[in-house]
């Protein structure tokens, strides 16, 4: 017995990890692929019916809700991630300077990110409440007219962007800050000697040097923002109407409200392809710049 283990020690040590990957990643993906080629409503009495690529044909030819949801997902992600990146980098540069209480401020910055997402979303839901919420009280206190916030189709999605920015800007800050700390000081000193202005030093030296780090942070945020679920399901459930129904919410509804498990699987795989492509494109941007 011991001989066997000794001889195959590499595979013995690798087995648990391999088994985990197969069980927790490959099987679910394979099963989702299988379901996506079937019609199944979750019946305990009748098995899934094979329909070939019908589900995929329906996504691309006969499902306006999918395209609307895709548009909203991209808009939400694009807005949220770009605002977070600009704010996050700016805050990181600020926090990189020496000032009293810097450690405390840095820790405080992280609070929104550490809080439980569902709890945070519930608080925002109360803040947005048009009749009882704090935000309208604040608007009226300064003499402005109240807003319906997330109950108004035309701005609901932007309210959710606000929540996402509030919650996740500090992630970009955190990652950028660690990049800034690791920068060599020599180029900066040389630039000061050469008489570069503060703006030039930031734009031409600091930013290009931390860019690879920022891109990593952006990719993380991009993937997470595309998949945003908790705040939307808690604050608006995709409403009013379908005004905040992103792809993830649509897929969730399709699977768990409408019971169309086969179609939801097809949607999931298409969604996966979209996330994968966007992440790959963003990352290639980093590599291209870094090697040039």
């Amino acid at each position, binding site marked *: 017995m011991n001989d066997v283990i000794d001889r195959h020690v590499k595979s013995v040590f690798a087995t648990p990890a391999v088994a985990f990957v197969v069980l927790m990643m490959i099987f*679910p993906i394979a099963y989702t692929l299988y379901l996506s080629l079937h019609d199944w409503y979750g019946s305990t009495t009748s098995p899934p019916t094979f329909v070939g690529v019908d589900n995929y044909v329906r996504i691309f030819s006969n499902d306006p809700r999918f395209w609307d949801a895709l548009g909203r997902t991209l808009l939400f992600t694009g807005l949220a991630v770009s605002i977070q990146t600009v704010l996050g980098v700016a805050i990181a540069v600020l926090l990189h300077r020496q000032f009293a209480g810097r450690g405390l401020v840095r820790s405080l910055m992280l609070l929104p990110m550490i809080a439980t997402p569902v709890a945070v979303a519930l608080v925002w839901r109360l803040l947005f409440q048009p009749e009882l919420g704090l935000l309208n009280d604040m608007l009226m206190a300064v003499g402005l007219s109240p807003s319906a916030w997330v109950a108004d189709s035309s701005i609901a999605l932007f309210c959710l962007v606000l929540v996402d920015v509030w919650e996740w800007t500090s992630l970009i800050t955190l990652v950028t800050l660690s990049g800034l700390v690791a920068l060599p000081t020599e180029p900066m000193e040389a630039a000061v000697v050469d008489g570069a202005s503060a703006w030039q030093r930031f734009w031409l030296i600091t930013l290009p040097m931390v860019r690879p780090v920022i891109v990593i942070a952006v990719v993380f945020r991009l993937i997470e923002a595309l998949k945003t679920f908790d705040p939307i399901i808690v604050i608006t459930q995709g409403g009013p*109407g379908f005004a905040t129904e992103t792809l993830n919410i649509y897929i969730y509804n399709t699977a768990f409200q409408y019971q169309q498990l086969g179609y939801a699987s097809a949607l999931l795989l298409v969604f996966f392809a979209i996330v994968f492509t966007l992440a790959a494109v963003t990352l290639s941007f980093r590599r291209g710049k870094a090697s040039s």
Partner: protein
Amino acid sequence: MTSTTTRTTRILAILLPAALLTGACGSNDGAGQENPAEATGEFDWQRYSGTEIRVSSLQFPWQEAIAERLPEFEELTGITVALDALPEEQFRQRLQVEMTSGSEDIDVFATSPQNDAARFVQLGWYEDLNPMLSNESLTSPDYDFADFGEGLIESQTYDGQLVSLPTVVETQIFFYRPSVLEQYDLEVPGTIDELESAAATISEDGEVIGWATRGKRAAAVTQIASFLYNYGAEFIDEDGQAAFDTPEGVEAFQTYGDLLREYGPAGSANNSWEELLALFQQGQIAMWADNSGQVASVLDPEVSSVADDVEFAPMPAGPAGDAQTFFGWSAAISPESQEKGASWLFLQWATSPEMVEELQVEADVVGGRESAEFADDTPESFIDAFQSSLARSRSQLPAVIPVPEVRDAIGQAIVVSIEGGDVEAAVSTAAEEFNRIVQAQQ
């Protein structure tokens, strides 16, 4: 690169299939120790003593009242009951996940036949109750099933199967605060036009909200039913196709949305009954239409500041009629249950003539039994409004299989109307969606 994408893969892909994993491997034989339908001998409440059942429900007054009385059942039968309840939306979602996975954990569950039955029957999620009902060894001689009335029994019957037993019967009811109507010298509105002018008068001051009803996508659909019927429109025609996109239907949608936009609470498009109940209990709403099941929470002085300032009426009539609408909750047994006999005893106890009357009298939870009396202190106006409405009521939902999906499609048009958009276009889009959905799934 590789690590981030594998991570994404895992998170994305795990959600759905993981839930289904057990379903694929689950077994389908729901047989317990004995097949309860074949039980013999005298009827005995103690027959299944020592067993344990799990009852899953949404949080609503019926479940609260039953939860308080569970010790009585446990003493009567020796059966232990674990009752768990979640808010409606979460309850529905968890039920679907558990049923899809073929879980044996749920024995009894709350269900709304109008919303669920066509789909659930197709999926095999209901145990047919007829064999147990007709077995004298299992059903108490005092049960008096016929007391539910033919119409109600029919609404629980699909393809000859008795899928559930009614627990709560609701009609749409017009709730109002008499003190507010008096303050503005207003009569109780009998028509939608009168409702509109009353709401306008009350809202003008801005002290209380004149009028409220649901505006949230799917939730609002049950409440617009009376508007549709009373403006001369229908959800569906004889062929099961959308029929609400007629000029009458568009007018119903238009009126429903206009009333809420002009006189309703801010943010109506996100309001379901939970939000409105809270506002009404706080005395912020003068007139409110919702289902009669809210009566228990409205009349409870511990949670409602308007408990002694509320009266009830049938829903005001429209230009083409004064139909009223109903909705019902029931309890059903899962075919995967290992304790069907014990579950049946629970259903029987919870819907027995004594219990239905007790809940009606002590908790203002109205069940479906014709023999059941109301409490002496139940407002006369509620009993009148409820009984006269029930007598001429129609379903709050269209009779199609994919009800949740078509509710979302119709609800979208309601939201557009509340927000003052192009109602005619929205209604015709909703009708197209409706037909597309129904056609794809029949």
